[in-house]
């Protein structure tokens, strides 16, 4: 279906994974993974947001439109949100969005919400590795089309 990436098909598949991390828990968890030298896949690139509830479904659609193979959202554990209730919004919104994406052909395994605290560097690294491994197995994602480009 996609031909614009034929050139790189020869090489080993390197998925593009975006991890949206909340500033207070998960981004700090990533920092802890870093200072603990807990390696995880280089395919994961982090975007910092103040809270997981800042993540607009549009960001995720945009990522799949631009060629991302997986998107993971990481926030504080339920009850621990720095802003009290942000992660509850995330949980509800993403449940809906991920079902819709699945319906559109972006498999459920390509999207995920995880709760990772500032003290869980090891969990951060393990989660990212596991997620990257899963995406690698799934292969390239379908690129969402943009109606405006037709």
């Amino acid at each position, binding site marked *: 279906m996609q031909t614009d990436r034929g050139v790189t098909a020869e090489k080993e598949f390197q998925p593009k994974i975006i991890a949206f991390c909340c500033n207070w828990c998960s981004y700090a968890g990533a920092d802890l993974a870093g200072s603990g030298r807990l390696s995880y896949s280089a395919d994961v690139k982090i975007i910092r947001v*103040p809270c997981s509830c800042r993540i607009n479904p549009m960001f995720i659609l945009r990522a799949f439109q631009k060629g*991302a193979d997986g998107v993971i959202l990481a926030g504080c554990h339920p009850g621990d949100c720095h802003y009290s209730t942000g992660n509850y919004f995330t949980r509800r919104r993403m449940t809906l969005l991920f079902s819709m994406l699945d319906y559109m052909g972006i498999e459920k395994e390509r999207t995920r919400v995880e709760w990772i605290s500032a003290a869980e560097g090891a969990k951060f690294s393990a989660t990212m590795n596991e997620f990257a491994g899963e995406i690698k197995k799934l292969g390239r994602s379908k690129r969402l089309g943009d109606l405006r480009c037709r």
Partner: protein
Amino acid sequence: MQRIGVFVCWCGSNIAATVDVKKVAEELKSEPGVVYSADYQYMCSENGQNLIKSAIKDYSLTGIVVCSCSPRMHEATFRKTASEAGINPYMVEIANIREQCSWIHKDMATATQKAIILGRAAVAKVNLNTPLTEGESPVVKRALVIGGGIAGIQTALDIADAGYKVDIVEKKPTIGGKMAQLDKTFPTLDCAACILTPKMVEAAQHENITLYTYSEVEEVKGYVGNFDVKIRKKARYVNENLCTGCGECTSKCPSRKGLNEFNMGLDGRGAIYIPFAQAIPNVPVIDTAQCIKFKTGKCGLCQMNCPSKAVDFSQKDEFIDEKYGAIVVATGFDIITLENYEEYGYSMYKDVVTSLEFERLMNAAGPSKGHLERPSDHKQPKTIVFVQCVGSRDTTGCGKEYCSKICCMYTAKHAMLTREKYPDTEVYVFYIDVRTPGKNFDEFYRRAVEQYGVHYIKGMVGKVYDDGQGHLMVRGSDLLANEQLTIKADMVVLAAATKADESARKLGTMLTASMDTNDFFTEAHPKLRPVESPTAGVFLSGFCQGPKDIPETVAQAGAAAAKVIGLLAKNKLKSNPCVARADSLICSGCSNCEKVCPFGAITYAETDVNDGTVREKRRVAVVNEAVCKGCGACTVACPSGAMDLKGFTNKQIFAEVDAICRQTGE
């Protein structure tokens, strides 16, 4: 169009060893908007900062990207640098190529490639940055200390001595906490009450300290400098202002079924009681579960006998609303319950006790008046076995994975005191490791072994059972002698693991202060900011942050106080400018944003709207910038896209997504 400078830091070899910094600087030079790029050993050093400042001036930069460590580390530093060079501090973005790249990847090509992509995302974002201005908010010059143990008392005293008002909220009827229950303290063996009670008195009499005992924090709102706290003062059924503490009521109470919490339930107390002789305030409290008046309506002996008419059965819980600039958490610890450790027989045998119970048994004010005797038959034990690490360092899931830290030392203390007072008693200690890092700690432990002849056995106890003749048989292993042994003991003392106080989790949620999986409060930085919570204005004192002994607790209490004083000394605080903003032209006034805002920062106002063709009054959302904390929940709830978050705008995040997804060379 922005004029962007890119500064790639080596961080010595922390980054440069795995990331080709020259290549990163070179590659990012061709990104849109970038007019200058450089690399340097330490960007955060004075020379590094000067390099940035002169580049800003020489190349008329409007924005900068620093590829370095985490923004949680040096974002503030580089914002200040930018500001000193004359550009808005919020025109700075950090690409985290240390924690997220060089430290976790080993392959240079991979790490360099990732660093370039992270740099690109930051450049893409800074292209869309706009100057932001910080707001200002006043600071309430009053601190709240939650917990009245040695940590809370010391913090409160230090803050009060600096001239600020402090309130202590303690859930128990008296301040003093766990330290008040201790007999002697290691490694000097001075008596706990002798050094604690003067501090309790000082706190009670200090003109700047208000005590709320038998009280709990009910609700916390607001933010650093301006917390609104509701405190529930539970009904004591005794008027604190009238009571003289004569104790007439406690001696007349006919109910004797209550367990004396202060003595770990080893003896009883009346339904109206003062926890211990030196309690502060020295005012009794009625335990309504035991009180005959509350249960049957008949009795009231305490009221009849009170010479100052202080007993008041109709007293109700009171609520106090107060404003604070800073909050210190000093909720302390407790010991675990031992239902997962049936092998030690704690629930079956009266003579198997915890160390805290042993502490009371040794204490002159304890249930046996300081004469060491077995709880079962009140006989003096001739052989005592101490078991360390009961539930500590336990990876089976039954107890706690961490080291409780204080047990090695207090067990050595107990063993030593026992041999000192009763030289004919044989004392055995089962241990996994003996950990005594602290001033004069190892010397103390060695004295227990060498001078007092305490038998230390490396190994764990497998089972404690009754021999049917009033002895406890302790079966364990001696790893050094490689043999199983059984000791006939009269008493077994378990060093039960410590845990965070049960009130901590609820309080953490109320304060939105982060906690670890063990319910200990997380510090803002494990080394450099050990007494601050990541939540601004919330500070940590004592065991609530992790296991600590008394000297460490007192040191941390003082440190927390210093941080609070530093905060309260300011008249105004700068507030975060990355807050929500509503576009009145697009807003339809649907109220979705208002409903999701956790802080009530969004209101609606009739506003004059002028979009060129239409001029009218519309009901549109207005954000109160002083109250908004910038979570961004409203931006996603807004169906029309009128809500955006400054510093993290939709466009900026789209740009980051695009930059990361871009093919190399595309």
